[in-house]
């Protein structure tokens, strides 16, 4: 009886490491080492530490001065926001109202969620429209694509300060809107509501070119036969869009919305440069709050605990993406 042929990888596992294998492993490690050493020190260890730190009290300095405090940091989030106490005084909804309108953490959470809820759909719609239009154009498509993508490459500081100026009193945007009959002529970033929309505007303006590129690639992957069959069946362009294009783009839309949600939750540069969270706390976002707690107020443990909230949100969204991707793959 001859043994059935086994794939190389499985056959090797049956024996203990031979000298050759040991040599191969060493060679492999020598390939990995230059990157892995840097990666381990500057990324992997900090990631692990970030989880540890949220359970400890640490003012920096030697690692041995770190003290395990269990869930105290998380508890102090709740204590410091006094929600329980306020709920006792004002009732459940009164407490919620207090949390989301008076407490820094509540306000920045609320702002971040609103910002995400508005920016994600707007960016997606803009990206799809751009991709559809660009997919049809024959002449100059490459040039248009480059132009539309450019905002994504430009630095946030230059972009944000430019938009800030454009949205100022007597600035070009207000002038254009006034010529259309608007009476608003204030700096957008000085007005609570408009500051929020200024940030949404800049974000959508910047996102749409990037996701357009992803949609364009997806559009080119849709089989032509589907459209040909639909044309034979007498479906018009509009019906074809709803019945073929949009369903075929669903995995891409799902992927893009996940990436956008994560990106929106991490927003920092835009708010820091355009409004610094103001006016008042109208555009204060989660990461800006973490930053201020850590680097302005030196509440390391608390900041880490809040950062964990961000981490959990992002991880949950990512896990959801993997799950759904598997479902699409199976269909």
């Amino acid at each position, binding site marked *: 009886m001859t043994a059935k042929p086994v794939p190389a990888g499985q056959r090797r596992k049956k024996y203990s490491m031979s000298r050759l294998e040991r040599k191969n492993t060493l060679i492999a490690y020598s*390939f*990995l080492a230059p990157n892995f050493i840097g990666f381990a020190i500057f990324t992997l260890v900090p990631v692990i530490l970030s989880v540890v730190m949220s359970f400890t009290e640490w003012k920096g300095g030697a690692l041995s001065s770190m003290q395990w405090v269990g869930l105290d940091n998380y508890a102090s989030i709740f204590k410091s926001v006094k929600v329980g106490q306020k709920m006792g005084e004002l009732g459940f909804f009164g407490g919620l109202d207090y949390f989301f309108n008076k407490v820094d953490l509540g306000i920045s959470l609320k702002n971040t969620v609103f910002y995400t809820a508005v920016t994600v759909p707007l960016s997606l719609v803009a990206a799809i429209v*751009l991709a559809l239009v660009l997919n049809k*154009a024959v002449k100059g498509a490459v040039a248009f694509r480059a132009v539309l*993508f450019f905002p994504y490459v430009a630095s*946030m500081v*230059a972009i944000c300060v430019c938009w800030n100026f454009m949205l100022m009193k007597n600035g070009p945007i207000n002038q254009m809107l006034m010529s259309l009959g608007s009476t608003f002529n204030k700096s957008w970033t000085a007005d609570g509501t408009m500051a929020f929309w200024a940030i949404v505007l800049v974000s959508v303006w910047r996102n749409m070119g990037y996701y357009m590129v*992803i949609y364009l690639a997806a559009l080119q992957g849709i089989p032509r036969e589907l459209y040909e069959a639909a044309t034979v069946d007498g479906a018009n362009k509009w019906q074809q869009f709803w019945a073929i294009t949009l369903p075929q783009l669903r995995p891409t839309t799902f992927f893009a919305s996940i990436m956008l949600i994560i990106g929106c939750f991490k927003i920092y540069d835009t708010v820091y440069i355009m409004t610094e969270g103001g006016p008042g706390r109208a555009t204060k976002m989660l990461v800006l709050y973490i930053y201020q707690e850590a680097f302005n107020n030196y509440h390391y443990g608390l900041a880490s605990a809040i950062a964990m909230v961000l981490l959990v949100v992002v991880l949950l969204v990512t896990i959801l993406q993997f799950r759904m991707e598997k479902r699409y793959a199976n269909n």
Partner: protein
Amino acid sequence: MTQVRRFPIGKILIYLVLIALSAFTLIPFVWMISASLKLDREVFSFPMRWIPETFHWENYSLIWTKVPMLTYFKNTAIIAICVTLIQTLTSSFAAYAFAKLRFKGRDVLFLCYISTIAVPWQAYMLPQFILMRSMGLYDRLLAIMVLQAFSAFGVFLMRQFYQNIPDELCEAARIDGLSEYGIWARIMLPLSTAAIATLVIFTFVGTWNDFMGPMIYLTRDENKTIQVGLRRFIQENSSDYHLIMAASVVSLVPVSVVFLALQRYFIEGIATSGLKG
């Protein structure tokens, strides 16, 4: 005689929409350039003029004397070039091991890389900061270099690409007596120029535009990068709109040049790696 040339109204509509959207995309840049050539009182004139009455080119020489722009540029260039070099070299090296070599602990190590991709930087920037400060890296250019140079993203991107290169190619080279280092240098590297171009442009642009990292780590003026320096310029000369715009235009030039030269790789890189997640 019945032949009627159909007027391509659909096509024209498509181009109109495209031009309108491109204009919307470009307006801030056009306005930026226009404002950078005006006098400060002209910037918000009513009604606004897109083309300045006279071109004040001297704005572009003034900005270099107001803040040490040249130093900022030099720092950013040093950081961006070093990071790009280290990142491309070490990640293509590591990616080769992950894609083409069999060794103990491969899957565990790769999982370490992958799992950190999902973690937002903001969640671990604090322990990273404390760690780096205890290593004496605070307020040194080296801090930003090591921060950016060993990202999991680079390894992931290169590995995806190497996996599409057939194993038989490596096997054949091994039989011919080429060492693993030789295979990497003579076969993998020449075959992966597209992936490397993608990684180079991503890394360079990302490092050049990085704002939060340098803001946290670099405090002394002689260490600042262009983004943080530009921010300082804005704070110190907040009403010199024309000069701020001139400085902004200047800060955009290097990235624009790299983008225009390599935009094909950039966009194709996003289209493929973006879809693969």
